[in-house]
């Protein structure tokens, strides 16, 4: 558990120190990709609690979702239709769903532990 957090902090530090900024026209792609990545993270946490965690599924979902969301945003930009709303909506809904399930597992697990004691 400590190693991913170290990775996160390291990423933030690199981001702060690096001179890279995203041009305004690509910022929507980036935000959708971040949302997709966050969705994968929540899905990963949920599956690890369910003990069905599979690293290949997790990694392919992480990158696949981000790339698909970015592609959808691009197509939407070309067509003049804000398709990336669909990505935001889908990922947002799944994010909250996963969070709700994680919440339940944690609370129910605590109760079971309390009952045992």
């Amino acid at each position, binding site marked *: 558990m400590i190693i991913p957090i170290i990775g*996160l902090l390291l990423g*933030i530090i690199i981001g702060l120190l*690096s001179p890279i900024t*995203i041009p305004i026209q690509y910022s929507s792609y980036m935000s959708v990709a971040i949302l997709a*990545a966050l969705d994968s993270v929540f899905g990963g946490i949920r599956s690890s609690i369910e003990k069905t965690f599979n690293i290949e599924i997790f990694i392919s979902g992480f990158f696949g979702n981000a790339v698909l969301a970015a592609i959808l945003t691009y197509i939407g930009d070309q067509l003049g239709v804000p398709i990336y709303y669909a990505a935001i909506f889908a990922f947002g809904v799944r994010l909250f769903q996963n969070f709700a399930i994680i919440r339940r597992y944690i609370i129910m697990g605590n109760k079971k532990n309390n009952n045992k004691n």
Partner: protein
Amino acid sequence: MNRKVYVYYLFALALIIGFITTVQLKSNTTYQGIVTIPKLLDLQNEIKNVEAENQQLNESISEQAIRLAEYKAAVESTGSAFGMMQSELEKMRNYSDYEKVEGQGIIITLNDSQKEVGEGEDVAWYLIHDIDILEVVNELRMAGAEAIAINDERVTATTSIRCGGPTINIDGKRHAVPFVIKAIGDPKALEASALAPESYIELYMSYSEIQVEIQKVEKLIIKGYEGRNKMRYQRKAEGGEAK
């Protein structure tokens, strides 16, 4: 499952998430909202206006650069920009009718009609009025007259020509017949406009037999405006459009 390996995967992914999120936050992009078609057109117009303004400014820059080069050349050849400024002032004065000018043109001499006043006729019909002078001046201007004087009174952009009883007041000064109107410009064009079938002279003045004499001159000298400066109230406007 070998736990060790996928911990490193997670490390890499966490690193990527941390990196892109920080970069995104750092680029400080404000949310533009939904870009609707009217908004798009508005923005397009704005861009167009700014581009037009840019172009104008660029043009004025190149104009100023040319003038600067002229000044520089003057300074280099004579040691000062004074001569250059003087010639510029002269040009301005020429343009605003303050300077004595010469050139080819025509002289129109108008005199009251010598026709006998018939019964029931008004003597005023056979006299020259302010409106006659105004019309002739206007026609000369239309034919491209560059400098006009009436009885050696320079006609400027603000000159008034008004009836003063038996005389005509030009810029407040009394003038009587004969009226000698001098105009610098293309003599042929000026003469043609004065003699054209539909011209004021042909249409009205010939009817009352007012004496008109038109003379083409190779070298005509017209005096500058000698009255006081009339620019007392107007100021240079501070940019922007009138409201």
